């Protein structure tokens, strides 16, 4: 690959590097002369601050790659924060426990059941001598459904027993981490069902969920609690502080959640059949359908994942800011979409990926940090963020040769287009050429 094309492909990373450079050069210094921006604490702080948005943006990337959108994540995150705070601070069958326990039981039961079936399927496929050739796999009644159902029921029963045992006292850290995301997952599943089975537009279905989840959060909290405060050690278990601690004094816990999640889903998107299906469906739904891809299942899974990650984000929000509130995630969905778009994922679906989203999230976080360190007026900060979104997306959409050509004043030459880029579909000079030909035609 020639160096210019390489540079053009990696320009997002250069953008990130540029922002870091600006941050380092412009950074204020401590009295001992150390650079504040580059200090380890500051950089880990940024990584922590972007974790909530990052988790949500990870789920959002998968949904957007499919050509969908999930507007409900902010509300679902807020609702989850209420559930989490309530489970932590109140004992007995609170509304949070009433909704969370069945949600956890059912989701875990289904997850284990499907996982068992998936494993049996995989084993059967592996026996096939003709590996790589597609064929229908037919399992017997035992491996086909009896064992998966039994395993699912067993797992569900175990979870139910565990959760119910937590109810009389306040929930512990592990129980909260189990129940809250499962609850959010259930909301995501409703989104998915409405879109896949109900045939609703993703925009409409998730918009409805965005409004409803806010309502659910407020009803759950009750009119008396616009905010549920969490005082670890007083009204909640002290162990909950683990979720905001520095692990080995090196890296904040929320960042670990974020990094593990994004690496995990990055690998899933890149190396698994599910991941390839996501791109295939996002690129062309009809073609994917005709090729035998189970479109509905993949779409459903994407919204479930998005809900699940919003739930995890809700728990981390409670841990960091010691409160659960229904409107905790107001505007979060838009931050997440912005990060995804800055990362180069197309809102049309089928193009982009989690590496870009990771950079997009970091660009947003670093920018906030730099502006804050420079002590810039809050209103100006908003303006700058808007400009950055427009700027990065503009640069993303064009390849570097074109940008440079324009700056040098050289007329656009037909570029060897990047595979999958907009230019591949539309050669830059085609439109011009046809109009010229028409002119000639009229004159003659």
């Amino acid at each position, binding site marked *: 690959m020639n160096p210019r094309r390489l540079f053009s492909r990696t320009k997002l990373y250069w953008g990130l590097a540029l922002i870091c450079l600006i941050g380092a050069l412009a950074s204020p210094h401590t009295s001992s002369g150390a650079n504040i921006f580059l200090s380890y604490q500051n950089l880990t702080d940024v990584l922590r*601050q972007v974790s909530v948005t990052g988790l949500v943006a990870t789920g959002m990337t998968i949904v957007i790659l499919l050509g969908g959108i999930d507007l409900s994540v902010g509300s679902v995150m807020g609702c989850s924060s209420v559930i989490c705070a309530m489970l932590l601070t109140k004992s007995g069958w609170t509304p949070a426990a009433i909704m969370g326990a069945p949600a956890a039981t059912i989701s875990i039961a289904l997850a284990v059941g499907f996982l068992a079936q998936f494993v049996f399927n995989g084993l059967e496929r592996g026996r096939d001598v003709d590996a790589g050739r597609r064929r229908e796999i037919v399992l017997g009644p035992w491996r086909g459904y009896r064992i998966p159902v039994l395993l699912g029921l067993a797992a569900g029963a175990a979870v139910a027993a565990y959760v119910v045992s937590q109810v009389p006292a306040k929930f512990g850290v592990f129980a909260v981490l189990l129940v809250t995301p499962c609850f959010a997952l259930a909301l995501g599943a409703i989104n998915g069902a409405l879109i896949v089975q109900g045939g609703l537009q993703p925009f409409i279905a998730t918009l409805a969920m965005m409004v409803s989840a806010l309502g659910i959060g407020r009803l759950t909290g009750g009119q008396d609690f616009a905010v549920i*405060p969490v005082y670890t050690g007083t009204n909640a278990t002290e162990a909950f502080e683990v979720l905001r601690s520095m692990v080995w004094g090196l890296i904040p816990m929320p960042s670990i959640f974020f990094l593990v999640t994004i690496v995990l889903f990055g690998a899933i998107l890149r190396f698994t059949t599910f991941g390839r299906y996501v791109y295939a469906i996002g690129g062309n739904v009809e073609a994917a359908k005709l090729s035998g891809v189970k479109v509905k299942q993949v779409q459903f899974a994407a919204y479930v994942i998005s809900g699940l990650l919003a739930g995890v984000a809700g728990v981390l*929000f409670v841990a960091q800011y010691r409160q659960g509130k229904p409107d905790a995630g107001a505007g979060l969905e838009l931050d997440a979409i912005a990060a995804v778009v800055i990362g180069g994922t197309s809102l049309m679906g089928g193009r982009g990926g989690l590496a870009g989203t990771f950079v997009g999230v970091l660009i947003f976080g670093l920018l906030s940090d730099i502006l804050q360190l420079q*002590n810039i007026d809050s209103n100006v900060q908003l303006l700058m963020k808007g400009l950055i979104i427009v700027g990065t997306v503009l640069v993303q959409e064009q390849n570097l040769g074109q940008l440079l050509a324009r700056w040098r004043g050289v007329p656009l030459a037909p570029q060897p287009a990047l595979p999958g880029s907009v230019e591949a579909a539309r050669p830059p000079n085609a439109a011009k050429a046809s109009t010229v030909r028409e002119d000639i035609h009229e004159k003659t």
Partner: protein
Amino acid sequence: MKRREFLKLSGTIAGAAMTVYLPAGWTPAKAAAKWKVGFSQATTLEPWRVQFNKDIEAEAKKHPEVQLIITDGQDKTEKQVADVENLIVQQVNALLISPKESAGLTGVVEKAIDAKIPVIVLDRNVDTKRITQFIGGDNVLIGKAAGEYAVKLLGGPGNAHGNVVEIWGGMGTAPAHDRHDGFHAFTDKEPGIKYLLNNQSGDWKQDKAYNIMTTALRNNEKIDLVYGHNDPMAYGAYLAAKDAGRDKDIKFILGIDALPDEGVTWVHKGYLTATFLYATPGAEGLRQAVKLLNGEKIPPVITLPTMLVDKNNADDILKQNGLL
């Protein structure tokens, strides 16, 4: 599953959910009330508004002759306008309103006055002289009280010294500007006081203030006093300092609002140095409405006083509210 079956099923589930949840949000009307008083609340998402509603409901319980109808504008001007129109149609005897914003609600308030309904405006005013009464706190006054107290903490008038972090409420909201102006009326006279931040807005939110403070702590080695435009932001700043291991270095943290389960609790626990009461006009509003309905004359403006809440009186306030 066919699409129609699915829709039917989801309809059933939604219906079931409604029947479970609706009773929670529905209050039956009092039958034997003499007066119907409507109260249009702007939103119930903020704790201060929740306290506001609690206060007015508690006061309504003391007046069995009054049936109180509360509506929630859900932080949207259009919704609140519709709420007030609905109350006009219900022919309430008096209308209490706490508008989300001044300009958008003025028209519908005039419509109520045209319908011969006396209007008492609470907390934020509307742009008309025809209302019967306005009740509200004075944010400039509260800001001044906080400023005067801050100067005293930092060494007294004339020789106050210290680095101050001020965390703004929502930019472009009147209370934030008033709380800023009032505070600066005192602190700007002190050459020893230095402001470290330039208009940094936490948007009234604990989490945003936390992040602002985290950076401020990184950027400044010495911070003496934090002034948050409300208690959650002051508390957020405290949490940031605590997580950075520097809560002991910061001598004073001041907030505003003094809600029993927020600011007062935090003062009691020693997280905040002091907070200043921004009383809700809920109880006073209903008392005035009852007076008016009974034919008494009421003054056109009532300004609610503020109060310093520090470790000396926090415990008493918590006891009065049954929180201790």
